[in-house]
């Protein structure tokens, strides 16, 4: 892969130039919440590594949208959300989360909505520094080798820029004068120091590699009951987890007298009590402990016969968010030590 160098003073102008490749999206502050949204002004972009509350999946697997319209004549798909976009500021874990979602949504038969949004969006990654709860070093997702068009590593006065695709290369060519092929020994030293500094900044870690076996062995453990008693079934963990893909469909009639309306798709949560309810009514997972087990099976053990590996990419959002401290850290800790967390 080609790696170039850019003086930091060109950043703003370069990002501005990307508008010719699509509408700019990235992390910006909106009503006191950091969120991925349309970027009017590149100065609004938050590129220092802070995490958005809702992960980047929302741009590819929208929280609520119309999949199709229906009337007496049948169903017509709705692709009005497709537009050329450039997503700026994706962290390594964000990119890994998209690669995981790809395994679900792009496996044959591909989900046309996710696929359309994905194919129309360029990914401009940015390096970040660990937050209080970052766990990506434990999950091996703290660096990326693929899944971006360009990736910027911030070394203060310069950026090292990884060119990950032909489109990324075209973006560079548009502003060729900003980029320098000549990465010096001093630059390399700086990069190594940055890596070491970043590695030392992680405050939390867990035993991700051994978790599949530990989860399997602990399936009948009474420790699950401890967590189940605390869980509020609020579903926050599934909303903030970047690799949660579940959704539900609802037909909504227009306010007319005719058979006309839309088939709407909305994020769903396996933590909700009615998630596995079927006609009968028979609920395959009425107990809270069973729902928690399911979630942590996916995050820490295995995910789908087709999709393979556990889905956690170590963003730490479940640690930030769960009101009663149920998260990959407390779960991993409890099942590794076979003890429930101290109060």
């Amino acid at each position, binding site marked *: 892969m080609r790696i170039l160098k850019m003086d930091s003073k060109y950043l703003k102008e370069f990002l501005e130039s990307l508008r010719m490749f699509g509408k700019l999206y990235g992390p910006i502050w909106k009503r006191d919440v950091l969120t991925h949204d349309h970027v009017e002004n590149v100065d609004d972009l938050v590129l220092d590594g802070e995490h958005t509350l809702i992960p980047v999946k929302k741009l590819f697997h929208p929280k609520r949208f119309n*999949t*199709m319209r*229906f*009337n*007496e004549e*049948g*169903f017509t*798909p709705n*692709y*009005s959300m*497709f537009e050329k976009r450039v997503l700026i500021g994706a962290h390594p874990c964000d990119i890994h989360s998209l690669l995981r979602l790809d395994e*679900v*949504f792009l*496996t044959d*038969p*591909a*989900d*046309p909505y996710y696929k*359309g949004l994905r194919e129309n969006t360029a990914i401009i990654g940015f390096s970040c520094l660990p937050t209080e709860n970052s766990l990506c070093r434990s999950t091996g997702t703290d660096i990326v080798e693929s899944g971006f068009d360009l990736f910027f590593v911030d070394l203060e006065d310069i950026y090292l820029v990884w060119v990950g695709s032909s489109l990324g290369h075209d973006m560079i060519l548009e502003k060729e004068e900003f980029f320098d092929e000549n990465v010096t020994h001093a630059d390399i030293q700086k990069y190594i120091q940055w890596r070491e500094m970043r590695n030392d900044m992680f405050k939390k870690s867990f035993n991700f590699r051994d978790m599949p076996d530990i989860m399997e062995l602990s*399936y009948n453990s009474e420790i699950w009951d401890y967590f189940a008693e605390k869980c509020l079934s609020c579903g926050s963990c599934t909303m903030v987890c970047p690799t949660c*893909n*579940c*959704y*539900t*469909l*609802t*037909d909504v*009639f227009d306010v007319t007298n005719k*058979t006309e*309306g839309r*088939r709407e798709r909305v994020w*769903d949560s*396996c933590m909700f009590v009615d*998630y*596995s*309810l*079927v*006609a*009968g009514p*028979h609920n*395959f*997972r009425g107990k809270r402990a*069973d729902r928690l087990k*399911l979630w942590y*099976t*996916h995050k820490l*053990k*295995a*995910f*789908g*016969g*087709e999709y393979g590996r556990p889905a956690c990419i170590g963003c730490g959002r479940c640690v930030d968010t769960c009101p009663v401290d149920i998260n990959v850290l407390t779960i991993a800790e409890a099942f590794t030590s076979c003890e429930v967390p101290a109060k």
Partner: protein
Amino acid sequence: MTKTQQIENPYIPEPARIVRHYDLVKDHRFFQVRHVDMKRAMSFTYNPGQFIMLSIPGLGEAPFSISSTPSRPGILEMGIRKVGKLTEALFKKKDNDIIYIRGPYGNGFKIDQMRGKDIIIVAGGLGVIPLRSILYYVLDNRDQFGRLFFLYGAKNPDEILFKTEFFQLKNRVDIECLYTVDVDTSGEWTEAVGVVTRLFEHLPEIDPSRSAAVVCGPPVMYKYVIQELLKLKIPKNQIQMTLERKMECGVGKCGHCVLDHLYTCIDGPVFTYWDTLHFRELI
């Protein structure tokens, strides 16, 4: 985007016509449907054990097993129980009305592994709907299989589905039909009384390594039926069962049909008993 035409969208339901319908028993109705597009109707093929997603615009979509056999192409058959919004609307439809379907989905039975073997079909209640597909498949390809045993139990005689059809099968010499009801409320029931596992007493001797079993029924039934099959020493990977989970997409995307780490809609709905030993959440 103007390329709408070229985008493959597995979620778009295709129009199909209700060709015929009749009531099986109270609140259970039999439907024959055919794609409106005749070419599609004739080329549409599937495996016994697969299902389709059925839509009525405005009332949603749900999975239903295909009850017909691919050996009789052109028509899809389903047996449907009225339980809620979508099924109630479906029961209001008349012959020639249009509904929407997509599929077929799921893996279906592993027929290749069943060829040359004696086949034991064990159905409880509604479970007979998907098993009717494999039943007729075996009958239509009779020379490819060994002996055929069809065990079917319902709560009472009023709940026996496909009664006329299945009692006619009793006249055939190439299938052994064993039917039972938990309780005989009618006083006119001529077959066995008792739970479906009691029918195993009537099976002749079998060679377990040359036998394959398929099972479908209410969740409580599996445990007891499997015990009987294991007593006969049928290998665990030659016992297939079809499982039901909530489903929304049918193609492995929505997550609803999850069973341990598998998605029932793509990894199932047919699993061998051996498969199920590896996952913790069962039935």
